[in-house]
């Protein structure tokens, strides 16, 4: 029984294919201007990986900003619900999910039965989202991975005062011109990001059993600072890219819905 989950986000589109509740494949691509196009391309990629075609899929659940515009799906489910379901499937017992995507940041609280009971998202601006890190990496001429790892080598980590992405750039340029080391600057960037996210997570009340998902979970610098600020060790999704948790949750929901339909 093959099912799929498709998450069309603002910056990337993700797809996950499951067979009898086991993951067969997943794919991540850059989103295009048309959600239906992004969804089709990412699904094709994931299906190719699993040597399958669209006809093999029995049920598809979509999530993300573009979810309502995808023609081939059976159902659309909100992002919060999918992230919650995906994280719980991979990490049973998890009670809090911090998801940092390309253009948003969410904190989700689950009850002991895994139901979403509370959530909050960033508002006002893009500080505290993946976009902030992308802009900074580009400015420093680094890859996103390097932005994460280099901060561990910082000797005099400094502080970025500006919360605004654009003004933070000005501040970084100023530090570059003053000869501050790249390592110290990357530490400041990751720390600034972690501070914004910590504020969002703290507003819900941090649980001991918390995990981090989304593309920014791959940035070790941000994760380390965040753990320090929150005072908890954050679980990372095992065996899977942390960016696909929403799509995975959608696929799990597809599987569960198909099972339920069978029983009916």
């Amino acid at each position, binding site marked *: 029984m093959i099912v799929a989950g498709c998450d069309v986000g603002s910056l990337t589109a993700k797809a996950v294919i499951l067979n009898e509740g086991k993951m067969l494949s997943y794919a991540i691509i850059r989103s295009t201007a048309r959600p239906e196009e992004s969804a089709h391309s990412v699904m094709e990629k994931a299906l190719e990986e699993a040597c399958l075609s669209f006809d093999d899929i029995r049920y598809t659940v979509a999530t993300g*900003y573009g979810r309502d515009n995808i023609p081939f799906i059976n159902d659309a*489910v*909100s*992002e*919060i*619900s999918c992230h919650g379901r995906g994280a719980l499937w991979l990490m049973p017992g998890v009670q809090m999910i911090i998801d940092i995507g390309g253009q948003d940041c969410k904190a989700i609280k689950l009850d002991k039965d895994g139901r*979403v*009971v509370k*959530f909050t*998202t960033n*508002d*006002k601006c893009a500080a505290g989202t993946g976009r902030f890190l992308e802009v900074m990496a580009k400015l420093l001429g680094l890859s996103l991975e390097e932005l994460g790892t280099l901060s561990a080598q910082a000797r005099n980590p400094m502080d970025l005062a500006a919360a605004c992405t654009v003004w933070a750039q000005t501040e970084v340029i100023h530090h570059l011109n003053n000869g501050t080391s790249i390592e110290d600057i990357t530490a400041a960037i990751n720390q600034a990001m972690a501070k914004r996210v910590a504020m969002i997570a703290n*507003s819900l009340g941090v649980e001991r059993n918390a995990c981090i998902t989304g593309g920014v979970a791959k940035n070790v610098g941000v994760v380390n600072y965040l753990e320090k600020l929150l005072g908890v060790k954050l679980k990372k999704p095992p065996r899977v890219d942390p960016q696909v948790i929403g799509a995975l949750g959608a696929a799990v929901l597809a599987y569960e819905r198909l099972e339920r339909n069978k029983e009916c």
Partner: protein
Amino acid sequence: MRKEYREYHFDRMVQSIIHFASLAYDGTPKEAFGMFRYAPRFREAIETILKTGEPGVLLLKMIDKYLIEVLTAHERGKKIALCTFNFSPGVLKPLDVVPICLEPVTTLGVMMWLRGLGEYLNYCCEIGFTETSCSAQRGALGAYLAGLGVKPDFVLCNSIGVCDTNATAFNFAAEYLDLPFYQLNAPPLLTDERSQKYHRQDFRGLISFAEEQTGKKLDVDLLREVIIETDKQDMIMCEIEDLMRLVPSPVPGIFNVFMYSAKYIYGGSKEATDVMASMLEVAKRNASEGRAGTTSGKEDARAFAVYVDHYSAQLRPWSWLDSKNISHLGCMMNGFWPVHAPYAEENLKEGTYIMDSTNEDTMIDSLADQMSRMPMVKQIRGPYDDPHQWLSDTMASIRTYKPDFCMYTGTIGCRNTWGAIKILARDTEKMGIPTLIIFGDAFDHRITSWESMRDKIDEFLTVRGILK
């Protein structure tokens, strides 16, 4: 401000739209909806209003009449006062003064115009406002400060101590346009003897100020008419609000905004009474048929807004809630607190007012009491959890209407509520009412688009299991 915006008067443009929309139903429904094809920019908002039938038509005719009164006031030898929304306009009629109710006029613009009032909002910033100044004023005020509307003769403000960004906007306007200025003050308490005495004296000061500006005395016979009409309106409003307690609520969600618009723009006039009476008829009919006030006649959830509604985006928030079969049970703007209000429980009666037409003094005292209890003036004058303030009023509304969830929309510009919303939401959650906080500007869709807000509400309704 862009050059083309300076070509037309804002208030005249708003009046034209409302005028022609109010005539739409004078023909057949087919003609009306045929006409909407030619008004793509205003269609959504007007259709949403006119879909309600007679109440919508009467509301538009009432607003049209009000705007014509503003536009022709000087020709008719009347003075114009620039007023806050939370100002009972009834008192101005016996003083022969026509009010520009600033926020309601901003609301009309943002509701009707597809692109909102960004140019006027920006204009205020160009001449000295901050971007976090209250957008409810900046919209229409931008036009008046740019000379794109009638020129007011003086300014009356009823928000000092209630909302600093609101009050300073009126202060700014008075300075900028070089106009006489009177502001009513709101002490932090409401029901103690000292505060009541202060309010009544302060209100008499306002009357003397207006008499000085017009050179005319308060007309006591007209004042009596206003008091009697206000009393009628309050009774109708209370009856409608009482019907909202039913499950399903037979009151269409948009009637709440009709109700407070009528009160703010034309409180104490026969036109406002007619609008309310027509709404009551519709609500009673729905109730007798056991129908909800939604278009489908079904109710899947009940919503209450703990602060203001969201006015930008052509009334889409109301259409969207309606499409989801959600009964909108009003917001803080509906909390006028007349003595018969269903939410005025026994222990809260002290916070209510009555209309007493016995003599001039009792009538002035009645209006002073009403003014000191206007929405926002009553609820956010002091600490959020003081007696008769935001928390107590919200709890009373929750107990009365039994909503399934509460919503808050606001920004940093709504300082008095933005600063306390998280603790208020904590308290409503403790009462078992899921509460959603959205960062959004009711008058400026550039802050957060309606689409983005809608997604958030949708997500919240799903996650909290409110809509299955």
